[in-house]
């Protein structure tokens, strides 16, 4: 399981990388892959499922693209920020704790030290944690090419299984996530066959309460149930303005199984994934509410 041959380049400045990409992709029509953490790409190379003609290594850009900054009501995260940094960064723990939790669920330590947030979003595995969190929170990404820079909303970013809107000559350079509003709680729940595996199904929730502890806002996303992260927030918007009991929450989530159309595979059937979606969505909302610090509603 050795990678096929490719030409390798590792420019040290982002402008050079972008110019090189433009040259290879637009002028020479070469098949180019960008190498960030390598935790998704290198297995594909080793299995010879990918045969790029050129690999452009983004890692020399780490000094420029590894940052976490608060910018008003957004957190701006450089695309080459490693997963393990997300787990313990104080800004993230305070303003977007779900991202820290999600990073911890990705996999084992050796994966977290190399994998990057940009790489995870571009790889767009529908069962992956960071794409789910990004989609649920309706974050934004900056995509740069030699000629332009554009910002795309999460709702437009994921096209299908392992496919995004990123053009072959573009680099994802920054991820922006809204900071968690006051009186909010976030939680991510997943079910996998073994500890640290890809999730069969994952649920990410954010609940925002009003001063009287009624629901002011709610977001719910599911991973592993569709080709892209699925937004199921609309199932819960009828509960906004209320103080729903746990039974009312369970009832509101009941139609979730009809909303989604997961694929079955050797690990789990579609029917079971639907059941898991319901269970995990419930658990995620319940935990998010507990994280608001407010007393849970009566039964």
């Amino acid at each position, binding site marked *: 399981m050795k990678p096929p041959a490719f030409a390798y380049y590792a420019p040290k400045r982002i402008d050079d990388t972008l110019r090189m990409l433009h040259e290879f992709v637009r002028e020479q029509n070469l098949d180019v892959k960008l190498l960030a953490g390598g935790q998704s790409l290198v297995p594909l190379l080793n299995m010879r499922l990918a045969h790029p003609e050129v690999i452009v*290594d983004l890692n020399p850009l780490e000094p420029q693209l590894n940052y976490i900054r608060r910018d008003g009501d957004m957190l701006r995260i450089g695309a080459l920020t490693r997963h393990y940094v997300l787990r313990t960064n104080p800004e993230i723990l305070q303003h977007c704790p779900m991202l820290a939790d999600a990073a911890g669920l990705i996999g084992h330590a050796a*994966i977290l030290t190399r994998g990057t947030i940009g790489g995870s979003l571009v790889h767009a595995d529908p069962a992956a944690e960071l794409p789910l969190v990004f989609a649920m929170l309706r974050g934004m990404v900056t995509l740069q090419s030699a000629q332009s820079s554009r910002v795309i909303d999460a709702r437009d970013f994921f096209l299908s299984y392992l496919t995004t809107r990123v053009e072959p000559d573009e680099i994802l350079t920054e991820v922006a996530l809204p900071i968690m509003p006051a009186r909010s709680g976030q939680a991510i729940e997943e079910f996998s066959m073994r500890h640290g595996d890809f999730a069969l199904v994952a649920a990410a929730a954010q609940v925002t309460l009003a001063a009287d502890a009624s629901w002011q806002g709610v977001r719910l996303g599911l991973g592993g149930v569709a080709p892209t992260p699925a937004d199921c927030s609309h199932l819960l918007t009828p509960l906004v303005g209320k103080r729903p009991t746990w039974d009312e929450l369970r009832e509101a989530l009941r139609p979730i199984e009809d909303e989604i159309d997961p694929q079955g595979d050797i690990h789990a059937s579609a029917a079971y994934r639907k059941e898991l979606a319901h269970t995990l969505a419930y658990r995620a909302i319940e935990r998010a509410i507990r994280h608001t610090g407010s007393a849970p509603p009566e039964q």
Partner: protein
Amino acid sequence: MGILAVIIMESQTVFYELKVNGKTYRVDDVEPRMLLADVLRDVLFLTGTHLGCEHGVCGACTVLLDGLPARSCLMLGIQAQGYEITTVEGLAPDEEHLSVLQDAFWEEHGLQCGFCTSGILTTMSWFLKQNPTPTRAEIREALSGNLCRCTGYQNIVTAVERAAAKMKAAS
């Protein structure tokens, strides 16, 4: 930029330096696609790092880069320039002695075939720096990225506990 007469595939070979276990090695005339694990094993003859799956799951190939664990089967050798790489061969204090962790594995029968052991020793030596007083559950969690097919893990967990206790007593 001027590099545009690009030679694709076949004959691109590269050279670079790698710092491994405190020593600097020159890697000459290799293809850029050569994985770090293969460079360590077949160019530098440091065969203590093992390949069990070549897709990042089993952990047998785990080395430390600037003290942090990484799968050497998921990196190109050329990407490891500039890091301080530690392999299993670099864990013992000298030729005559084992590290506290290695010794604990010996005492606790923490290995059978030994194939997974290298990757576990590097991972656990990092882990104990992060968490010097781990519970068994925490050890199991930290260990879960390294597969073992022989021991059933139990003695490995005990060995790490033992090493942690010894290190704590010494400090």
